[in-house]
């Protein structure tokens, strides 16, 4: 009996979210820039939402709600990765600083990778990957998914001015990268 209920719950959860999966994956892919991380992000989202499935049921407009959760999760994951196991931490001498652990800056992407006879969309994806996460997120949601800035101000809880400056700087960086490699 318990198993039967459990099955029903899962089916219902799946029924609600399955139609959103392609769309969630697309945004996740733009956020993260690669398949593995995009799959992980969508997976993390499902894991996070599973215990909240009753709440999910009462959400009238699912997509904006999902965008908000996905965006937060993306930022959290990025933060977690910064503390990540797989970056080497430098142990500083005791007298050096209050924080005993200092992180090494992540290595820059190799500019050599961005030249050559790639097709336009590949170049643009590469250029997107070179942006910081904030710029990538706003370009994804506004320029590609069509969310208005005023809408995103509420959804992401980021002031309009900040969103605008991220968007403008992100686009400027993209153009610079694409001009440099001769795409534009």
């Amino acid at each position: 009996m318990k198993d039967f209920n459990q099955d029903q719950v899962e089916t219902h959860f799946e029924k609600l979210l399955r139609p959103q999966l392609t769309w969630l994956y697309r945004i996740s892919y733009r956020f993260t820039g690669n398949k593995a991380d995009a799959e992980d992000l969508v997976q993390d989202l499902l894991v996070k939402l599973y215990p909240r499935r009753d709440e999910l049921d009462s959400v009238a407009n699912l997509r904006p709600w999902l965008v908000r959760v996905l965006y937060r999760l993306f930022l959290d994951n990025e933060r977690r990765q910064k503390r990540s196991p797989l970056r080497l931490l430098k142990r500083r001498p005791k007298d050096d600083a209050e924080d005993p652990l200092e992180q090494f800056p992540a290595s820059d992407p190799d500019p050599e990778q961005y030249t050559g006879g790639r097709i336009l969309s590949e170049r643009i994806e590469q250029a997107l990957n070179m942006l910081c996460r904030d710029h990538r997120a706003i370009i994804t949601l506004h320029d590609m998914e069509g969310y208005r800035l005023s809408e995103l101000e509420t959804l992401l809880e980021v002031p309009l001015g900040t969103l605008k400056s991220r968007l403008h700087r992100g686009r400027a960086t993209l153009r610079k990268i694409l001009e440099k490699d001769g795409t534009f």
Partner: protein
Amino acid sequence: MDCRITNHYMEDYLDDMLDDATRGRFQEHVERCPDCRNRLARGRELKNALNALPEPILDPDFAARAFKHAAAAHTWRRRIDTSKMMRIAASILVIVALGIVLKGGWGPGQLESPKAFVQLNQPEDVQLVFYSEENLENVTFRLEPPDGIELVGFENQREIVWQGNLARGDNLLVLPVIARNREGGSLVAEIRHGSRNKQFRLQLKVQQADHPHPGADRFDSSVAPMRFI
């Protein structure tokens, strides 16, 4: 409106964020200024190119996998939450110090294996300490967990490779690991710099979660710093 002001409003114009009056003056200028027209065209070109990116294709079996995992992860988490006390006991760090003297001391040889104890199905941090005699840049790190042991956040990856730096002195690497079965095995950590490389093997022994090894013993058995020269 001059070119400078037009430029200032460019992005807002593209996003349709200008009021009617400003938009009118913007358009007026653009109509008679080839430079600004050109800039506007490039702005549109970028937006169009972004919108023309091909849709990433989701693996057909991803949905089934992901929903199944979401339900399973929840069950697993709930179980962990009920054993909070146990987790506190288990959170004693297993520290393995691997001293490596990088200058001139690099050899292909296998090194003696230090041991660390982890518990079945519980995330635990294993800390590795690498000692380097000098600052080194562009060091390649490679980790290969044994079958049945996963690195949290990198599940299902049998090999993790990344680039980083080593600082002079002790360098700490924190690895959250989780044992999925009782097999254990050696975790291979390889450090490469230029043509030199050194490989370490850390023996991971898995214990039953309900029979925790006494913390002190675990600590003692694995804390001894090891220096490889």
